[in-house]
């Protein structure tokens, strides 16, 4: 029997072909994300399909929103895989959102976002915060929208937190006992924690802070330390997996989010110390930006069909490039929004010279004057390599053409 599961806020359905064991699992894992079940609509394109395989206990799982091969999973992992697809499908239905691979936990009415790669401890930490009474918006994916005049706004998913099994022996005994007794589906690899009172899908909070996790194996006192803004920028850009958006718009909203408050790194080894450290650090939000009340930004698509024209004698910055200084680092996005580039100090200075048309010879002359001890051939080669990359990235154009663009 073919059925479609429609999650609130997502246009495309999850399709079940047989797979009767999935529905009751979903009800416990996506406990706070409302969904409806209907007969499959052949005209509707699913974001994910789970299919029974005759004579096998595993389920065939295929994502239609990610480029990866189909897998045979046991039922718990099949739901886990479908939820990864769901996280990709959500922003496809909502132009306000970009989604970060991150955890998000509420402290005193604001969300603290942990934009970390796998194995940084964000799921275990999220579970520990849930145990301590903090609402967990997500332990893996945080969708963000960007209201005018305020910090980013985080959206709750309504998916139960998940722990990887076996739990490490290094975790505190009382936490391990709590987790092992917590209700929720599990298999040999994962345990979901179906906890009461967690935020329902669509609940929102303004982002209060971004915290990068640095888990150490050795003994270290847990502490929050400031992070250079550019390190935070790199982490946020990397953790954003909604990549069909216009890169210039993504650069603008993330840069604005970083201006709303400092970014921190939590260095820790002990789970209980980490919880106490963050509770002490984020017990209030005095001095941080007020929530925005303006219209939320709606992202446009990147235009991927741009091809650089023929090179001219002199080059100039293209009209429409988005520039943002984050700390000491310049970030650029091309007018079509195809990519974001990070410029080191010398590349940024050369970029500045291209505010007006310049020939490679003129640029080389300026560099040779500044670095007289460097062989001229090396400077010329380095400069040409940079100009080629700027050209290919659509950041500069031939001076004559760009002048026409301006008109």
């Amino acid at each position, binding site marked *: 029997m073919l059925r479609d599961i429609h999650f609130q806020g*997502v*246009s*495309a359905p999850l399709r079940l072909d047989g797979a009767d064991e999935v529905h009751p699992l979903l009800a416990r894992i996506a406990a706070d994300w409302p969904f409806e079940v209907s007969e499959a609509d052949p*005209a509707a*394109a699913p*974001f994910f399909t789970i299919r029974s395989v005759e004579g096998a206990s*595993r389920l*065939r*799982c*295929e994502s*239609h*929103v*990610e480029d990866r091969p*189909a*897998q045979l*999973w046991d039922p*718990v*992992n099949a739901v886990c*895989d479908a939820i*990864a697809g769901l*996280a*990709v499908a959500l922003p*496809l*239905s909502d132009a306000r959102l970009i*989604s970060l*691979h991150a955890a998000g936990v509420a402290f005193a009415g604001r969300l603290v976002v942990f934009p970390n*790669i796998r194995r940084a401890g964000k799921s275990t930490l999220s579970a520990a915060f849930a145990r301590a009474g903090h609402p967990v918006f997500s332990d*893996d994916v945080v969708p963000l929208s960007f209201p005018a005049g305020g910090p980013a706004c985080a959206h709750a998913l309504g998916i139960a937190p998940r722990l990887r099994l076996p739990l490490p022996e290094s975790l505190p005994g009382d936490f391990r006992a709590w987790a092992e007794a917590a209700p929720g589906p599990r*298999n040999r*690899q994962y345990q979901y924690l179906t906890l009461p009172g967690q935020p329902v899908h669509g609940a929102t909070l303004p982002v209060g802070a971004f915290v990068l996790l640095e888990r150490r194996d050795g003994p270290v006192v847990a502490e929050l330390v400031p992070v250079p803004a550019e390190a935070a920028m*790199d982490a946020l*850009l*990397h*953790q954003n*997996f909604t*990549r069909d958006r*216009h*890169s210039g718009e*993504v650069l603008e909203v993330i840069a604005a989010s970083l201006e709303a408050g400092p970014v921190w790194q939590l260095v820790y080894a002990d789970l209980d110390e980490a919880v106490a450290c963050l509770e002490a650090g984020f017990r209030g939000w005095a001095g941080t930006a007020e929530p925005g009340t303006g219209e939320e930004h709606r992202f446009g698509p*990147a235009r991927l069909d741009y091809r650089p024209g023929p090179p001219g004698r002199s080059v100039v910055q293209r009209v429409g490039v988005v520039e943002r200084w984050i700390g000491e680092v310049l970030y650029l996005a091309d007018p079509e929004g195809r990519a974001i*580039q*990070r*410029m080191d100090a*010398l*590349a*940024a*200075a*050369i970029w*500045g*010279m291209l*505010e*007006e048309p*310049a020939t490679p010879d003129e640029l080389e002359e*300026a560099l040779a004057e*500044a670095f007289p001890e*460097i062989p001229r051939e090396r400077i010329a080669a*380095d400069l040409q*390599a*940079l100009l080629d*990359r700027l050209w290919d990235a659509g950041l500069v154009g031939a001076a004559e053409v760009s002048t026409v663009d301006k008109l």
Partner: protein
Amino acid sequence: MSEPKDTLFSRRKALGRIGALALAAYAAPAMTTVSVAQASSGSSGSSSPSPTSAPSPTSTPSKTSSPTSSSSSTSPSVCSGPTDDDAGCAETAP
């Protein structure tokens, strides 16, 4: 032909920035790609299924080390499906 005043000013400003950098050791100017947009995948809710060209997993952000080199770290981080070290919970589908 003489350059306009504002052109000269911005050029002088940029030259000043390069001049300030001259106090440090020379390193080739570096531009690193930190994020690349990708085509939207098909299943946003209408018409027929079209399997995607969405993000591919993995990779870590690159550092700005090699001179003027392109970063290959542009694949985004992805949400955690049950992909690695699956404890015997999976097989690859035929």
